[in-house]
C-alpha cells in the first residue's frame, strides 16, 4: 500500500511532520548539487541506515527496490541517448552510430538512477514513519482548509475497505468461472472488466455513502471551528535535526559552488586519481 504506516518510537517517528517535509526539501536540494555516483551511493547507505534506526524491516525496502529495478535500468540506458559524448573516449555504441558509451555518460546514468531511487526510498521512509492523521494536521497547520484535510483522511482510510470490496468482487467472479489469473495480457485486460465495472459502481456508492455520513456526523456544522484531537508540536529534536541537516546541506552546496566538487567523476578522478 502506498501509504502504509509502521508504528514505532524512533526519532523519525517522533519528528514533527513539518520537520520531515523540510528535511525532504533539504535532501532534494542536496541530491541536485551532488553528481558523483559514489557519494550518491553513500547517501543511499545513509537512508538504509535510517530505515534500520526507524525499525522498518529491510524486507519492505527490498520490496520497493524490486519494483524500481526496471526504472533504474531505463534511466541508465536512456542517458546514453540524450547525453553527448563531448569529446570523451567512446568505448562503443549501444546502437550503431547512436547512444555512445563513455565514462561520463555511464556515470551520469548511474547518478540519475541512484537519485531516483533515493528520492523514492526517502519519501517512503517518511510515509512509513508518519501516520495519515499527522500529515493531515500538518496540512491544517500549514493553512490548508480543514475540509480538504478531512476528505483526504477519509479517502485514505477507505483504501483498505475498497481493497476488501475488490477482493470480494474478484471472488464472486471467480465463483462464476472468470479466469483472472491468465498470462496473456490482452485476455487479462478483458478478464478484468467484470471486476472493474462492479468496482467502479461500488466506489461511487462508497463516495455517496461517505458524503451522507459526513453530513450526518455534523461535519458541515462548523468546519472552521472543528477540533483536531491530535496535536503536533515542534520539539527539541526537531530543532536539532533540522539544524544539523540544514547546515550539512548548505555546506555541500557552498563547496559545490565555490570549488566545483562532487562532479560526476569527483571521487574517481579527483580523489582517487583512477581515471
Amino acid at each position, binding site marked *: 500500500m502506498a501509504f502504509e504506516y509502521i508504528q514505532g518510537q524512533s526519532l523519525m517517528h517522533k519528528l514533527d511532520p513539518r520537520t520531515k517535509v523540510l528535511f525532504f526539501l533539504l535532501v532534494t536540494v542536496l541530491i541536485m548539487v551532488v553528481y558523483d555516483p559514489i557519494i550518491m551511493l553513500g547517501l543511499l547507505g545513509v537512508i538504509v541506515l535510517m530505515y534500520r534506526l526507524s525499525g522498518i524491516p529491510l524486507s519492505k525496502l527490498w520490496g520497493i527496490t524490486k519494483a524500481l529495478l526496471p526504472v533504474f535500468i531505463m534511466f541508465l540506458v536512456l542517458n546514453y541517448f540524450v547525453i553527448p559524448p563531448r569529446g570523451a573516449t567512446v568505448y562503443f555504441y549501444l546502437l550503431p552510430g547512436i547512444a555512445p558509451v563513455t565514462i561520463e555518460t555511464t556515470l551520469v546514468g548511474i547518478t540519475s538512477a541512484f537519485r531516483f531511487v533515493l528520492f523514492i526510498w526517502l519519501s517512503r521512509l517518511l510515509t512509513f514513519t508518519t501516520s495519515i492523521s499527522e500529515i493531515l494536521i500538518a496540512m491544517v497547520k500549514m493553512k490548508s482548509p480543514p475540509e480538504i484535510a478531512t476528505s483526504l*483522511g477519509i479517502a485514505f482510510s477507505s483504501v483498505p475497505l475498497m481493497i476488501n470490496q475488490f477482493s470480494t468482487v474478484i471472488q464472486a467472479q471467480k*465463483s462464476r468461472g472468470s479466469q483472472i489469473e491468465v498470462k496473456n495480457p490482452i485476455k487479462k485486460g478483458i478478464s478484468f472488466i467484470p471486476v472493474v465495472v462492479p468496482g467502479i459502481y461500488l466506489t461511487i456508492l*462508497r463516495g455517496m455513502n461517505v458524503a451522507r455520513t459526513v453530513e*450526518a456526523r*455534523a*461535519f458541515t*456544522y*462548523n468546519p472552521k471551528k472543528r477540533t483536531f484531537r491530535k496535536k503536533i508540536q515542534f520539539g527539541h529534536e526537531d530543532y536539532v535535526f533540522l539544524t544539523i541537516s540544514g547546515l550539512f546541506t548548505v555546506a555541500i552546496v557552498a563547496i559545490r559552488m565555490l570549488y566545483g566538487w562532487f562532479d560526476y567523476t569527483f571521487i574517481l578522478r579527483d580523489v582517487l586519481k583512477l581515471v
Partner: protein
Amino acid sequence: MTSKAPVISCKGLTYTYPGTTEPALNGIDLEVERGEIVLITGPTGAGKTTLCSTFNGLVPHFYGGRMEGEVKVLGQDVREASAGYLSTKAGMLFQDPSSQLISATVEDEVAFGPENLGIPVEEIAQRTNSVLNYMELNGLRERPPFALSGGQQQAVGLASVIAMKPEILVLDEPTSNLDPIGTINIFALLRKISREEENTIIIVEHKLQELVDIADRIVMIEDGKIRLEGPPREILAEDAVLLYERGLQPPQVSLLAHKLKAAGIPIEKVPLTVSESLEVFSKPLRALKEPIVELREKESEPQQITSQPIIEVENVSFQYPGGVVAVRDVTAKFYKEDFVGIIGQNGSGKTTLVKLLNGLLKPTQGIVKVFGLDSRESPIHDLIRYVGYVFQDPDSQLFSKTVHQELSFGLKNLRVPRDQWESRINSVAKMLLIDSLLKEAPYSLSRGDRQRVAIASVLVMEPQVVVVDEPTTGQDPRKRREIMELMKVLHDKHGKTIIFITHDMDLVAEYAKRCIVMKDGGVVLDGSPHEVFLHYDELEKTHLKPPMITLLFKELGARYNLRKDILTVDEALGYLKSKLVS
C-alpha cells in the same frame, strides 16, 4: 426545562425523490414527545428510511427532491435549518454498518462527530472513553473499523452517534447484522440511554417481539403512509395477523394465539412474550380432562440419507495470511439431499467454511473433497461446476449491459457450447421469475431482482450444490421468505443441494432440514433443526436463541408432557389443534 412542545412534528409531509414521480412519503402526520422511544416498522420500500432522513435534514438538503408539508425538529423547520446543524440535534445511524465507517481506527471513528462539534480535546477523550467502555468496544480501540465483523461495525457506528450526544437518536435497523443475543443487548442499551439521558429514540426495525416492552409506540408505514399507530401491546395484540400479512414479523406467540382463536379454541387474550403465553395457553391445556401423555420427542422425519456424501470436509482448518484461524478442525459431510442452514455468532467462521467448499479458499490443514476432487489440487474453475456460490451483495458481481449477458457470463467462462446457452438461460430465468427482465440492465433493477439475477447467474452453470451466503440480511421478513421459498423450490423440484448462512433462526427452523452451529471456527452442533434447537444452553453459549415458539414449548412441554421440538407457528398450531380440538 419541560416544554410540552413535541421534539419532532410532521404535518402533511409528502416527499418525492428527484427523478421519480411516485412520492416516497405521502401525507405523514406524526408527533414525537421528548424521551419517547418510537418503533417505526413497515415493509421494504415503505418510506421508513426516507422519513428518518427528514429528521436530520438529509431529506431534502442532501438528496434534493420535492418536499411538501412540514417537518419540525425541536421547533426548527428542517427546510430552513442546514443539515449540518440538524445533525447535531438528531444523530442518525444508517442501515448498512460498513457504509458509514470513515476513519482509520475505531477511536477516531467515535471521536469524529465530537471533533466536528468543536468540543475541547479533553472532553472528546472523556466522551470517547466512556462510550467505548459502555459499548464494550475498548479492546477494539486501535483496530481499523473495516476489519471488524458486521456486528462489531454496527456497534461502532452506534457508538459514534451516541458520542455526539444528540437529543434525538435515529437508528435505522441498528441490529440487522447482530446475532440474537447481540440484538437484545443493543435494545437494552437503548432503553438505558433513554432513561438516563432522556433521549428521544426513533428505531426502524423488523424485530418487533424484542421491542414489545421497550418501545413506547409503534408506527407502521406502508406506501409512504402511516398505516397503524399506537402502543406496541395494542398494535401487536390486535393486528398481529395484519402485520404478518404485510410481510412483518409480529411475535410468534401472538400469531399463534390469533390462529388458535380462529380455529375455535378459546384464547382469553393475545400474549406477546413467552411468559405471558405460558399462562394464556395453559388454560385450555389444563381444561383437558386427561393429562396428555406424550413421550415421543421427535416427530420430524429423520433425514433419509441413502447416497454417498458429495462434499467431505475432513479435519479442516483454515488460517488467513494475517494469522487469524477462522476454521478449526472441522469435519462434516454434505449429502445430495441436504438443505443445510449454517448459523453461528458473528465471526464464528461460517463464511470461511463455505468458501472452502468451492475452492475459493484452500484448507491450510486437512482435506476438502468436492465430488471426489481434492480442492487443493483442483482449480476453482473445475470445482464451481459442482458447487455454485452466491455472494451476499449482488452489486459485487453484476457488470453486464443486460441480464441476458449477465447470465451468459458463467456459460462463456465454462465454455458451454453456444447452442445450449439459450435453453439454459431461459429455463433458469423462468425458474427465478426474471424471464421478462432479460433485456433490462441489471443496475436498473430493484435490489430484490438484482439478487435474483445474481442467483440465476450461478444457477445457469448447473451446479449440484448451491451455497448462499446471508441471502436475507437487510431485507424485510417477507423478502427473506421469498428467497427461502425460492431455495425450497430449487431443492424440492430441481433436486439441488442447498447450503445457506443466516442470522435468522426462524428461517432455519422453517426451511432447513439440517442445521450446523458454528462457534470459534468449530462445529458445535450438527443435526436436524428439531434436535439442534432443543440444545438451549449450548445455543446460548454461541450467542444464539431458538425461535420464540420453541422457547414456549420448552416450558409448555415440561409442564404438560407435550413435545418440545416445535419450531414454527404452523407446526404449533397443528399440534395444539390435534390435542385440543379432539
